[in-house]
Structures are given as C-alpha cells and as structure tokens.
C-alpha cells in the first residue's frame, strides 16, 4: 500500500502517512487523536479565556457597568464550566498523555485505539453542547450547579449545560480507563513499574481518579437534570430533601478533579526538571508514591468545600484533618524537585522556565490551600477572592504552566519543528509576571472580605485598587498565552527541523524520530535502563536552539 509520504519521497511519519479530513476524523492513531484534542482544547481555552477577560474588565470599576448582572453571572459560570470540564481536565492527559504514554512505555498504541477516538468524539459532542448552551443564551448556575438554585430557581440552559458536563465526563472516564489498561498491559519488555517515567505514574494516578470519581459527579448532575425535567425531588428542600447532599456528591468528584488537573502537570515538571538538570529525579520511589498518595487521600477530603455550608461540626473536624494529610505528599514533591537540581547542570531553556514557574506558583497555591484547610481561617475566606486566588494558583499557575512547559518540551517531537527559543522565553516570563499580577492581589482582596461572584462592588470602593491591578495582570497574561499559540503555528511552517532528541533527554520518546512514525517503534524496544538515566547519556555541549 503506497502511502502519501512515500509518493513524495519524504520519510514517513504519523503526520504525512495519509492526508485528508477523513484520515484525521477516522484515525485511531493515538498521536493524531492527541492533535485532534489539541485543537478542541485550544479552542475552549481561548473561549474560557475570553470570558475571563470580560469578567476582569467588568471588575475594573466598582459599579456594574460593562455588562448586566445576569450576563456577568453567565460569564463566570461558563468561564468555570468551559475551563474546568473542557480545558483543565482533558488538557494534559488527552493531548500530551495521549501522545506520549504509549511511546514512553514502548507500545505501538493505547490498548483501545477505537475507544480513544470515541473519547474524542464524546469530548466534541460535550463541547458542542457547551457551545450550544453558550450561543442559546448561556447558563448562570455557577460551575458548581448548586441546588436548589439550579433545580428550582433558574430558567437558563441548565439541562444542556448538565448534559455537556455529563458527556465530557464520559470522555474523561474512557480516557482514564484506556490509560490504566495501557499502562498495565502494554509495557514493553523490561519496562517495569520502577522504570516508568513519572509522567506515566502521574497519568496512572490521574486515571484512577477519573475512573472512580467522575461517575459520581455524573449521577449528581443527572439527578439535577431529572429534578428540572421530571420534578424528582432528591435534593429539593421543599420536599424535605437536603441540598447539602448534592454538594457532597458534587465535591466527591470535584475535589479530586483538582488532582486530575494537577497530577499530570506534576508528571511533566518531573520530566523537565530532570532533563534540564541532567539528573535522575531525586527520590524516584517517594515521587511515585506521593502521586498515588495524593490520588487516594484526595478522595477523603471533599467536604472541606463545605465548612460553612451547614455540615456537622464533627464532620468538619474530620475533613480538615484529612485535608492536611494530602498536604504531606504535595510537600514531598516540591522538596524533591528542588533537590533534583542540587549538583545538577542546569540550563534555562523555555520548558525549564515554566518548570521554575510551576514550582514557585504551586508552592504558593499549596500553602494557601493549608489556610483553607484550617477551619478557623476557612470560615472567613471561603467564598471570597482568597479561594479564587488559591485555586487559580493551582490550576493556572500550576497546571497551565506545566501544560505550556510540556508543550514546549515535546513540541519538537510532536511537530518535528523547533519553536523560536527567544520568543518562548519571553512568553514564559510574561505568563509568570502576568499571572502573579492577576492573582496575587486577589489573596488580599479575599482576606479583606470581597466575596466571589460579585458583579458590582460599589458598596466597597476600597476593593478597586487591587481589582485594577488584577485586570492589568490579566491583559499581560493574555498576551503571554497568545504568543505561544502564534509561534507554534508559525514554527509548523517556518520552524527549524527538530532533531530526534533536541534536549539530549532520556526516555523512549527521544529514541524515535521526530515526528514519530505511525507505529512509533520499528521493533518492540526492550528496556534495560532506569528512568532518567542522565548519567549514562553523553551530554551534548551544543544544544540545538532555533532562533
């Protein structure tokens, strides 16, 4: 069978093997599916980002003057739903995980390539439902769908939004299932559990959460939809139902969902820090165990979102205590990344800059998480901008930094082209500065008492200065995010051809051509080395950098 590439005489890769829309939409190649996801995810990132900018612009002045109150409520609701369910949760696993996991473990594909494609279609169907929700007037439940507001009191598109979340949840479950089976069943000979890159361990832990947690939020959301459609009364207080039960079921997933977002990021950072320090990861086993520990203990802490919601005093004590348990493995990770750099040979390529940013911002995000776990403080700062700042430090400061770092690190492998290093460093700097300017003032705002989801704060003009700083930061952040988008696209056409291993990195993905061929490996690899064997890789003095 002559392939498209052979006719033109190029080396055959997964990109040029076949051309045409059909060859993409019906592909079962995990690398092509990863790129399909990349398109969807980038689209939703900018949709959600656009909503965020409008929110920030509205808050520039205390009065509600840019948009109407209802519109504002829809903006933050859809910002949350789009970002959480259509960007943060799928981004790293479905793009980088999809692309890299089979290669990293020496497999030709995921265990269920067709289910992988099905996941993407479900994601797109969920995404289209979300777009329909937005275009047909939006939804203003808050991303949390709290009852009875969502069930009894709103007449916006709650059901289609719920359906969008439900369908995308299915996609997430199938991705997790695929990863677990792949990691268990498809490892190449010699690729033992102790030799897996931490990126793979991170996705394994993430997949466990996806598989165990997502169904619970799915049923909670379905019950909300059933209450609206058929007037079932499971959370309805006027029938004696308890709205807090919805919150329990919602947070049983949605707290661990934070770890779905951050664990893959931790995996990326481990890869990058090792590569650019030319070192093995410090404390490999502790790092792998910490990932699993976070995934498991992360399931025991959900009600810390409900300390003022009216739960029992004693339940609050238990959940506060358990929340501190999850702090320990997170601390271990930060200390180990830092120690990995000790006596290394550190270079400051763009991915490493993002990794530095991740470590710093994740530290702040994690430490402020300890404030929220602390019962006495949480009462004051929950549902204020303190919480908003905290989770943006984890999700945007942590996860998005890691995602961008990973995109830069593996872009040469994915596209076969180098991105412009100078622009990359500039963008990393802009993102870091813009991020801190946007979100650090919000910690102070929160402690001063500014509640979240407020459209109008004309009663409290003292909040304005910090809001202005935050909005200013958001514009810098927006530029920082647009830049990579532009130069990645630019590099696909004009970028310097990437060598197979531009960073001299360890790992199976760097031993195959850039971009890889459709089946990744000519022959099944046999692994005889530990992960991050940088001491065995001869260091290239000339690191190729495209300008």
């Amino acid at each position, binding site marked *: 069978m002559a392939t498209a590439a052979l006719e033109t005489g190029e080396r055959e890769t997964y990109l040029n093997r076949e051309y045409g829309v059909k060859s993409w939409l019906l592909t079962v190649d995990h690398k092509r599916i990863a790129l399909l996801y990349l398109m969807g995810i980038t689209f939703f990132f900018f949709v959600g980002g656009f909503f965020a900018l409008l929110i920030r612009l509205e808050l520039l002045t205390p009065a509600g003057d840019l948009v109407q109150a209802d519109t504002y409520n829809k903006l933050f609701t859809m910002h949350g739903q789009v970002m959480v369910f259509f960007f943060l949760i799928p981004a790293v696993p479905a793009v980088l995980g999809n692309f890299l996991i089979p290669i990293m473990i020496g497999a030709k594909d995921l265990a269920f390539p067709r289910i992988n494609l099905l996941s993407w279609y479900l994601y797109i169907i969920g995404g289209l439902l979300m777009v329909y929700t937005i275009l047909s007037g939006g939804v203003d439940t808050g991303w949390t769908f709290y009852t009875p507001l969502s069930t009894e009191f709103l007449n916006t598109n709650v059901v289609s939004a719920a359906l969008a979340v439900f369908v995308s949840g299915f996609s997430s479950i199938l991705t997790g299932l695929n990863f677990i089976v792949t990691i268990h069943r498809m490892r190449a000979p010699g690729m033992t559990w102790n030799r897996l890159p931490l990126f793979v361990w991170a996705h394994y832990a993430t997949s466990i959460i996806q598989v165990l947690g997502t169904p619970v939020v799915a049923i909670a959301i379905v019950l909300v939809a059933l209450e609206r459609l058929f007037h079932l009364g499971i959370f309805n207080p006027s029938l*004696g139902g308890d709205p807090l039960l919805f919150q329990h079921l919602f947070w049983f997933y949605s707290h661990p969902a934070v770890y779905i977002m951050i664990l893959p990021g931790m995996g990326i950072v481990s890869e990058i820090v090792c590569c650019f320090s030319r070192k093995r990861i410090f404390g490999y086993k502790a790092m792998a165990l910490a990932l699993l520990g976070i995934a498991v203990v992360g399931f025991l802490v959900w009600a810390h979102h409900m300390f003022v919601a009216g739960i029992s005093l004693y339940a609050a004590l238990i959940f506060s205590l358990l929340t501190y348990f999850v702090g320990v493995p997170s601390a271990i990770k930060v200390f180990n990344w*830092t120690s990995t750099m000790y006596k290394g*040979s550190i270079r400051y390529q763009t991915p490493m800059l993002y990794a*530095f940013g991740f470590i710093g911002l994740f530290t702040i995000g994690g430490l402020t998480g300890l404030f929220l776990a602390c019962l*006495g403080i949480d009462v004051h700062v929950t549902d204020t901008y303190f919480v908003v700042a905290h989770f943006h430090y984890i999700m945007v400061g942590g996860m998005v930094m890691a995602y961008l770092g990973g995109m830069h690190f593996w872009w040469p492998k994915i596209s076969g082209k180098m991105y412009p290093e100078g622009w990359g460093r500039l963008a990393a700097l802009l993102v870091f500065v813009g991020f801190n300017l946007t979100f650090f003032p919000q910690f102070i705002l929160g402690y001063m008492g500014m509640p979240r989801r407020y459209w*109008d704060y004309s009663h409290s003009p003292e909040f304005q200065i910090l809001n202005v700083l935050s909005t200013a930061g958001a514009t810098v952040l927006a530029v920082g995010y647009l830049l990579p988008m532009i130069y990645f696209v630019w590099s696909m056409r004009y970028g310097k051809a990437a060598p197979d291993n531009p960073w001299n990195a360890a790992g199976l993905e760097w031993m195959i051509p850039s971009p890889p061929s459709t089946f990744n490996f000519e022959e099944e690899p046999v692994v005889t080395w530990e992960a991050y064997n940088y001491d065995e890789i001869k260091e290239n003095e000339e690191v190729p950098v495209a300008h």
Partner: protein
Amino acid sequence: MFQSMPLWPARASTLANDVDALYIFLIAVSALMSVLIFTTVAFFAVRYRHRKGQHAEPIEGSHALEITWSVIPFCVFMVFFAWGAKVYFSERKPPQDSAEIYTVAKQWMWKFEHMEGQREINELHVPLGRDVKMIMTSQDVIHSFYVPAFRIKQDVLPGRYTVAWFHPTRAGTYHLFCAEYCGTSHSGMVGSVIVMEPKDYEAWMGGGGSQPLSVTGELLFNQLGCATCHRKETQGRGPSLIGIYNRPVLLEDGRTVIADEDYIRESILQPAAKIVSGFKPVMPTFQGQISDEQLNALIAYVKSLSGPASPSVGKGMAAATAQP
C-alpha cells in the same frame, strides 16, 4: 493612596482577633517555607548552572531526607489543624445566654427580627459588647451570612435553621455580604451591620413601637387555634409546650430528639414527622399557611415558655425592654 487600600478588614469582634492571630501565624510559617524553597531553587539554579566541562553528579535520593521533610511539615500541619479547630469550635458554639435575632434570607434581601419585635431589612443594629446569635433560614435558595469585620460566615439554607454568633467589640458600620451565589442580584444582596454604643442602641430600640417577637408569636398561637390543644396548665390533645425548648423529647417510635428550633419548625410544618410519645398525630400541617416570619414568632413564643425567656439584645442593659 495606602489609606484607601487597607490590607485588612476592620477587626470588630472577639472572633476577629482570634482569626487574625491564627492568620498571621499561618502567613509567617508560609512565608518562611516559601522563602526557604524559593531561595533554594534560585541558589541551585545559579550555583549549578550549566558550564562547559562540568557534569551533573548522579544522586539517587535519600530516605532520611524524605522522612524528614514528610514528618516536619506534618507536625506543622497538625498545629495548623489544632489551632484552626479551636477557633472553629468557638465560632460554631454560641454562648448560652446570647441574644437572639431571627434572620430570613430571600432573593435578594436580608430580613431581621429582634426579640423586641423590631424588624429590619438589610440593616442590622446590634449593641456593643453583647453576644448575639443569629438564627437563620432561607425562603428560597442557599445564601450565606458574611460579615468580614466579624470574620464570620454561615450558609443560610432553605428548610432548616443554621446559627452564627458574634460579640461586637467596636462601634461602627460594617459590611454584610451574601457569600453564596444566589442568582441574578447576588452582588446586590448586601447590607450593613451597625454596632452601636449601648445607650445609642437603647435610643434606637425605643424608636420603634413594636411588640416583642414572643408576644407576636403568642397572639398568632391563639389566633391559629394552637392553644386549644397545646394548653398551658392542663394536658390537652397535644403535648404541653411549657419548658420543652432545648430539652429531650421522647417520640412515639422510641427515639429521643432535642426540641431545638429545627424540631419546633418541623413540628409546625410537618406535625406527623415526629410524634411525641403518648399522643396521636391529629395536628394539621401549617406548611404553606404561615410565613417564615410568623414561624419565627411562634418559635420565639414556644421558647419563651421555657424558663427564663430567650435573652433579647436589649436585655442586660440599664433600661432593658420589658419581657412578657
């Protein structure tokens, strides 16, 4: 510029001092930890930057270090937990003789009823130096009673009561926010808490010619015909309500419950839900027939039948308003 940009909300309750002390402690520890991590990262990044001819040293890791930096943070975290729990306990447990104010939240306003009968909307007047307990319920969705200057926040739920309390320590006007997103005008569901010197408060109190809440409740109690069965002296068809508040009640199915506000509320709205031992479920339901405010008045009346009347905000001051 910095005068208009405070980093701290006013500190106007006893709890605010406790919370701020804990907050400062957390900030100090976190700042120490972040400075430690950031300087180490920065130092390593510079000290071990790539130089020609120099190679990284292979290091596997260290169990001793892993254990150290697990155990030390854990111990610090336990201090956070214990201190936070202590503050939370005092936040959640109102003192015995707190003055009580009934609160009904609805989209998008706050309604307050003092024991003396004064009613307010979006404004709450309280005297300096008294423990004040808010007994709160919602008519529609979940709201949250948040006064940053007091460092208290408590969600207000439909269908049940939740409680918050504070002890104001500084006169002034403070923000009251709804902190749980509740629909279109969520950000308009704001008000003020006005903490007054006791004598100003008295003057304010004297201004309204209303009757105490429990008296309103008593009138309603007679008007609705409750008194025909729930008699004061003799046993009627319904159990006597004298002295039941906050006491255990033996139920027909053998369980024992405490007759708190939630129980009294449920017994009025869904009388058959918890039948008192020895009685028949003959009471009609009042669900949908009385408002939350009327319900509060009835509860205030029932509570007033239990020994010393529920303390009012004005009580304990020079010329306290007369209690029935």
